[in-house]
């Protein structure tokens, strides 16, 4: 058995073990930490599968943003947890759920293992036309050039999610700010971290975004890193979340999909149809659109984590 095979099997077993721990965790907090560990292991799996962009996204979103989102939710639910513990689902319901999960797993495994080797794929065509887009990273080309409509719609979904989260606020708080107010004397250790990390993080975030054209990276991963930096500042209470009624916030949220859509429609005029780019101008346009998407993602994710407004708007 080669070393690599042993490594892969070990990794797979570890993923299973952590997943099992997540399912059987005793409380919400534990389950979230287990889930973040699971995400990290998955990102190593993605690396093994040579999907570096996905690994980056898994780390940034699964490990970082979603993890923090879930932690916040677990903290808010802590008071309700004792009540919920008395309402555990019945045994038969659990068995049914387990069987359903096993069935889905078996079907997926069967489909993947029964695929012809090599599996049907559009990768060769994607790689062929890469030169026309001016990009070096096929993943970015798929996201912004070949399947641009999907990506734009994803960003719209993100904006809708923010609207959904904001709508959870009681009426009198509408327009106010979520999260906690800025602290007069923030805890020193936390403040230190929040002052040192963000400059570096912003640099890394923008680098990851810019590098996405030719190497693994892109707007989503870069935006997630930028979002994490802003969230650190908010967690250290060095700054507070902006009020949801602020105009600049709302403009930033819609800038990404709006610019994307504008260029898509402009494709009718500039090039051969909806969401096509004029030849030769593709790369600059793509980077321009991605810059706005970066802004939107960096603003949307923290707003999702911050939650609904909790204070009245200041006049």
């Amino acid at each position: 058995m080669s070393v690599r095979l042993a490594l892969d099997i070990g990794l797979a077993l570890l993923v299973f073990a952590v997943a099992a721990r997540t399912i059987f965790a005793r409380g919400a907090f534990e389950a979230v930490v287990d889930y973040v560990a699971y995400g990290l292991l998955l990102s190593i799996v993605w690396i093994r599968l040579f999907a570096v962009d996905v690994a980056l996204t898994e780390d940034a979103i699964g490990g970082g943003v979603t993890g923090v989102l879930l932690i916040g939710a677990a903290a808010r639910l802590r008071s309700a947890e004792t009540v919920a513990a008395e309402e555990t689902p019945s045994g038969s319901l659990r068995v049914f759920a387990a069987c359903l999960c096993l069935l889905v797993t078996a079907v997926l495994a069967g489909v993947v293992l029964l695929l012809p080797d090599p599996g049907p794929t559009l990768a060769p065509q994607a790689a062929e036309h890469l030169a026309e887009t001016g990009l070096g990273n096929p993943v970015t080309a798929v996201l912004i050039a070949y399947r641009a409509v999907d990506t734009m719609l994803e960003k719209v979904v993100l904006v809708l999610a923010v609207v959904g989260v904001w709508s959870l606020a009681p009426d009198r708080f509408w327009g106010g700010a979520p999260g906690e107010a800025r602290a007069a004397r923030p805890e020193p250790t936390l403040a230190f971290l929040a002052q040192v990390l963000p400059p570096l993080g912003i640099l890394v975030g923008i680098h990851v975004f810019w590098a996405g054209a030719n190497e693994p990276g892109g707007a989503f991963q870069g935006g997630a890193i930028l979002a994490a930096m802003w969230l650190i500042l908010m967690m250290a209470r060095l700054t507070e979340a902006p009020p949801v009624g602020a105009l600049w916030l709302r403009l930033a949220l819609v800038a990404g999909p709006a610019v994307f859509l504008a260029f898509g429609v402009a494709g009718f005029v500039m090039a051969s149809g909806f969401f096509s780019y004029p030849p030769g101008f593709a790369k600059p346009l793509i980077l321009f659109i991605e810059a706005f998407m970066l802004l939107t993602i960096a603003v949307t994710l923290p707003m999702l984590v911050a939650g609904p407004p909790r204070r009245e708007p200041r006049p």
Partner: protein
Amino acid sequence: MAGMILFTVAVGLIRVLSGPGDVDRLMAAQLLGTGGIAALLLVAAATGVRGVEDVALGLALLAAFASTAFVTSAAPADTPDPNPADDR
């Protein structure tokens, strides 16, 4: 070599995730940060994947971010410190 790190991280993880109390979970985030990055770098070097340094950078930042979140949620700063004389 990468396998050894993975193995030790695994064992550490199991211990940390099974231990009593919330504090062990906080340490899980820390462990994932250092061990995970080391494992990531070694696995990538061993299998010849390119562009992994950025992932490791991002992971380092995100691990710090997640650790901060775990700590602030488990022990919120508003809790009065039982030893106020120690704080300056």
